[in-house]
């Protein structure tokens, strides 16, 4: 997900939302890697089979 930080959150942190705005986004690095290389199963990344590791 991603988006602009809610003004209430900024206020709770002592920041004036009319002076500053913020945005944040997050993506699972494992899943991005999955998509980029076309890896079929996320568990491959944690099993550490050398047949998998040697491809990268």
């Amino acid at each position, binding site marked *: 997900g991603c988006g*602009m930080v*809610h*003004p209430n959150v900024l206020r709770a942190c002592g920041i004036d939302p009319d002076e500053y*705005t913020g945005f944040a986004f997050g993506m699972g690095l494992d899943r991005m890697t999955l998509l980029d290389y076309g890896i079929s199963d996320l568990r491959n*990344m*944690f*099993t*550490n*089979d*050398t*047949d998998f*590791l*040697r491809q990268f």
Partner: protein
Amino acid sequence: MFVPQIWLRDFVDIPEDIKVFDKIMTRSGTMVEGYEYRGEGLENIVSAKVETIERHPDSDHMWVCSLTDGKNTYQVVTGAQNVKAGDIVPLAKDGATVSGGKKIVTSELRGVRSEGMLCSGEELGMSGSIIPKKQENGIYILESDTPLGEDIKSVLGLDDYVVEFELTNNRQDCNSVLGIAYEASAAQHRKFDIPAYEYDDGSDDIRNYVDITVKNHELCPRYTARMVKILKVEDSPMWMQIRLMGSGVRPINNIVDVSNYVMLETGQPLHTFDYDKIAGKKVIIDTANDGDVYVTLDGEERKLDSSMLMIDDASGHICVAGVMGGANSEIDDDTKYVLIEAANFNGPSVRNTAKALGMRTEASAHFEKGISRHLTKYAADRAVSLLVQIGAAEAIGGVIDLYDELPSPEPVTMNMDWFNRFIGTELTVDDAVKYLDCLCMDPVVKGRDITVTPPKYRQDVNIKEDVAEEVIRIHGYANIPLRHLESSNYISDENRYYRAKQEIKKLLVDIGGYDTLTYAFISPSKIDALGLKEDDPRNRPLKLINPLGEDTSTMRTTMVPNMLDSLRTNYLKKNKAVTMFEIGSVYLENPDKNALALDIEKLVIGKFGCDFYEIKSVLNYLFESLRLTDVRYDRADEVFLHPGRSAYVYLNGENIGFIGQIHPTVAKKFDLCEDTVVAELTLRSIIERYLAVTIRFQEPAKYPAVSRDLALVMDESLQAGDIGAAILELGGEFITGCEVFDVYRSDALGEAKKSIAYSLTFRSPVSTLKDEQVEEAIGNILSGLKDKFGIVIRA
């Protein structure tokens, strides 16, 4: 929630192409979870009338039917028992396919020709949980005025998609067909008009029939009631049944069906009571008493407490408010008058009551999510109009509507210049006004400010940022122009720690190491498998409060179990043995209970099918490459390592970790061969030392070195490192190096003896060494070793 498109099309035009519809809804914030074509796989099935039906001559449970589709006659054998002459049924002709992929062909059943198949609800793709009880276990009987020869998909409205939407918590106003229609209109930049219905109210008044009191306004902010006079309790029309089934609700009878229909359409759950069963003609909304007992519609006896809101009559409870009605007030075939309840109940209260009683219904689920108080009267009126429309009842005039207050959303003002800065666009006031108008926000412009009043049913637009979200999601997030991030030219300090970490990884990869990745969470059984001592801090892993499962219930205190698992995977697969390593954090209890847990980064190295020295040489390679020279090894005392083949590693006098062959018991627990070696070192210690080392130039030696090898026989208990250190001490001023290059064991050496071969290097900074000088040094070494340790040269 599931919405059949045909229902939506009553209120708003939507694109024919389901993929386009998916896109416009999802992109404007109403996420499409999925969709299903109801007529999937139904080909060549038509409506046909059964003209005659006779018993099969050769079977006592089958029937031979003669059907007409208006053009031709078909003879079909069926095993169903519910078909009568005159019934109109779905006929799958020769060549048809039914739900599930089955292909129908003309065949013979027990010697009688069958030119097709009559279809049950399931064969038409309907799920067993929503087929009306009457139509279960039999052929699906169509309405008696169904035209013949029509494709079953159009007869039953199955040429339609059911779309599943996933709603966000703040937009439960969309939990209805009308709510989705509102969104679908705005997403297409059109304004939605909430429909009004007209019908004859009649001259009678509900106040002549019943008296209603709300005793607890906090749990029931609004109670609206209307009444109707039943004409006949029977099946609801097919079009209504089809829509209910598409939404996942089983049709029961016209009264209950209208109640469910209105709930799905408006988002306001209704309840219907048999008026004549209401004792004293009084309805009271109040909490129960602790210990009260009540039998619900499903026949179960429920125990109540004083937190639960109930609907009562003069003699006791008749309904669990917002959850489920009772056996003592339900509609049956003899019902003459119906009291329709459309009420607003406190969401959390309904949720707690439903949970405590173990009953979660469609109605309670709606209330849990929070419903606007403004919906009740609209829904009650809609129910009455629908009952009149389908000929189920006559309206009784008037409405009882009890509430303390009906707060309406406050106006919110947003400045357009602020909007464009916040979102990063260049929209005009007119653009924003157009979108806000489509959302029924009633925008009023004053200069560059827009003031909106959100529609009554929405509770989520309260600050200018909410208004901004409404504008941009309708305009389309994808239409925001892309721009590079502008910022001041701030260059942060180089993260030397991070770069050093990457260097270490590269060094290990360069000699053939494999970088592995494992989870920071671990099963406690894996830590137990190491057999750590009771008071070892690593034996007290931090526990998760809400773990997903055993395997992820604690935080790892050492990298060793995960490394052993990685090695095991490859060992069992008979992959070639390679050096594996990982850099990761381990977590330990912080003695300061108010601070975060200790997070210590470790480097772990492992390999199966090798000996201790092979991994030691990997460590040596690493330390040399990092120019770390003050490295010492000393006998280790770790329960999970082989006692004779393990060592602690000291860098600059600090114990930074261990290396060793794993203990046979541990090897067994992890299904590994015994010659598996692991090493685990504290990364920060290595990196900080590495970053602290400054290279000072040293004049290269001018004169050549002399080397001598010594094979020394010593007690098994002596450590090679200690003897090496002794040699350096005894070696005099010219000895510069002493390396172990061989370890030899044999019974011929004597009991509990081993032979270690050292390669010694001598050099003088001022002249070429003479043989006599070297011999003298060797002599001192050998006599010193003999005196102190009883060591002799190998014969």
